[in-house]
């Protein structure tokens, strides 16, 4: 037998053993002792030594736990804690019943197609397969015209996604410094992923854009080693949204041009003299420099009337542009 065949066969034998162990523990009405488990499972029974069995069983049990199976340890006799056994409680293991209506099954039917990122796409399909196994029948036909997609192209994405889910503290390079972070949440906005969490050195909430993470993401602690604060506090949207628009500009806009800008404000009366065909709008904004750059993009179709500071910012921005070689 060639080596690859041999390896494949070993993997098959192992899957078979783990599967039978899982079923055996699930069927247990009480904690099963190791020696009982060895007796009923053929692969364990055929092992030469007690030692080989112990080693294999310990490893198998841990692997089941890693897969998420709730393997419990305990004793059937409260007076004798030496007789340690194992079981899986059905209620802890089984997916609770979920009823979906037709509209929900239609959106679940679209869900399988959403992720372009390979890991999350596979995980979504596994989750949907479990729903099918529980009797739900996602219907991909009804919303066929809806094709959302979501990617995680950033090199740091997979590692950070896992860290947020498993609550693992991380270390990474950002703006040429090493950061240590408890990642609390991860958000996709404007086509980019952001992580929000506790900067462990500064002991403050911080947002990092994943595309700017300069190194591999290193795990520096155990899974579940912290608890994120309440969702209200960890809502990073407030942190990555534009600053509060607390200033007011009056702009003259040519005819029906720049609809995206006009939509942000409202038509106002003004004493200033407007160029022919222009209408005055009041629009809220946050920073002179940023808004001036945005206004400049529209050329002479937008003229700032007020305030003076914004008007000057536009003039300075254009004059400096004319100096570009």
């Amino acid at each position, binding site marked *: 037998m060639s080596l690859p065949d041999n390896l494949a066969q070993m993997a098959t034998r192992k899957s078979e053993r783990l599967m039978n162990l899982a079923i055996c523990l699930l069927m247990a009405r009480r904690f099963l002792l190791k020696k009982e488990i060895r007796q*009923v499972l053929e692969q364990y029974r055929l092992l030469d030594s007690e030692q080989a069995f112990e080693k294999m069983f310990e490893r198998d049990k841990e692997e089941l736990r890693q*897969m998420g199976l709730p393997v419990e340890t305990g004793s059937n006799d409260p007076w004798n804690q030496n007789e340690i056994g194992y079981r899986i409680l059905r209620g802890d293991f089984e997916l609770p019943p979920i009823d979906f209506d037709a*509209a929900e099954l239609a959106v679940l039917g679209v869900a399988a197609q959403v992720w372009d990122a390979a890991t999350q796409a596979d995980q979504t399909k596994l*989750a949907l*397969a479990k729903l099918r*196994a529980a009797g739900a029948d996602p219907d991909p036909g009804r919303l066929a015209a809806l094709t959302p997609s979501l990617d995680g192209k950033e090199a740091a994405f997979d590692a950070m996604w896992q860290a947020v889910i498993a609550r693992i503290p991380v270390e990474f390079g950002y703006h040429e410094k090493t950061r240590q972070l408890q990642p609390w949440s991860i958000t996709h906005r404007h086509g980019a992923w952001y992580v929000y969490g506790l900067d462990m050195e500064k002991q403050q909430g911080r947002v990092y854009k994943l595309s700017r993470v300069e190194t591999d993401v290193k795990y520096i602690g155990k899974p579940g080693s912290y608890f994120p604060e309440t969702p209200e506090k960890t809502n990073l949207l407030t942190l990555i949204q534009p600053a509060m628009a607390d200033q007011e500009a009056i702009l003259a806009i040519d005819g029906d041009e720049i609809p995206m800008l006009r939509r942000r404000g409202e038509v106002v009366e003004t004493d200033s003299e407007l160029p022919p065909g222009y209408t005055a709008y009041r629009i809220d904004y946050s920073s002179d420099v940023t808004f001036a750059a945005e206004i400049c993009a529209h050329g*002479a*179709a937008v003229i700032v009337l007020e305030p003076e500071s914004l008007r000057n910012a536009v003039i300075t921005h254009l004059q400096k542009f004319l100096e570009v070689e």
Partner: protein
Amino acid sequence: MTSNAQVTRLLALVPYLQKVGVADLGETAAFFSVTKKQLLNDLNVLLFCGLPGGFFGDLFEIDQEALETGTIVFSNADFLARPMRFTPDEASSLIVALQAIAEIADTESSAAARSALHKLTATQNSSAQIAVHAQAGTSDLRTALLAAIREKRSVQLTYAAASHTGTTTPIVEPVRILTRDGFGYLQAWSSQRDSWRVYRLDRIFEVAITDEPTCDPGEPPPFDSGWLEQLTDAVEIELEVSAAVGWIGEYYPMRSSERTPDGWIFRMLVADPRWLNGLLLRLGDQVKRVSNPAALASAKQSARETLSAYQVR
């Protein structure tokens, strides 16, 4: 393929096959996102699994003759009738996918996505804090577009194209709604122009459903981040900017980005000179070099005209 991944799958496959009784090999493989060969391998493992004891009658039963014709007939798994709970990774991936749908669906389907998401969250002890957002116009607008797609009607859009300064009112046959890089888009057939068009949802101001039935334009071309490449009149521009405006490399699709000691060199496809004009004016003196001298000259001309409107110079 690790044993862990296989066992995780088997724990879902058994209750699924038990539930349906008779299943198609190809369809089942697709549901579990494995090849048919891998699925056959899974079934081979299951032949030796079952109730402890391992006696004949304790094991799962798979009809081998039916399997040869591509049909799985599965039985004797009453004791494993329900799948395992979701792992945190599975739950998060599915829940986030539903969020992405809710962001661009019509009013009814958005509500359905959110209620499904809550039901899934309720099965978990804890849920990771993950959120996705898309700029995709209003749900009323999406409801109108999806209704038009369903009823196969043309629509008249009031649209603010990036390349025009005002709005246009194209009549198009809507086909599907999609997202790319955080924005929602409508893909539609234009019989006026005899071509496929893409409209950004947050730039659509109004949707009027017409009485005009669509002519069933067929399957639209795939819309990926390279769609700009399909525009025949696009030209490549090389733009060197200072580090302060490096964000444009994340904001606009670039063919290449190259770091310089104090900035960036971007290569990008530009389909509309007016768009480039606006970008240069916005970047101002952060622009260091433009490969196309005419583009820079034209933006400077706009700057002069604008300054004269402020009556300075």
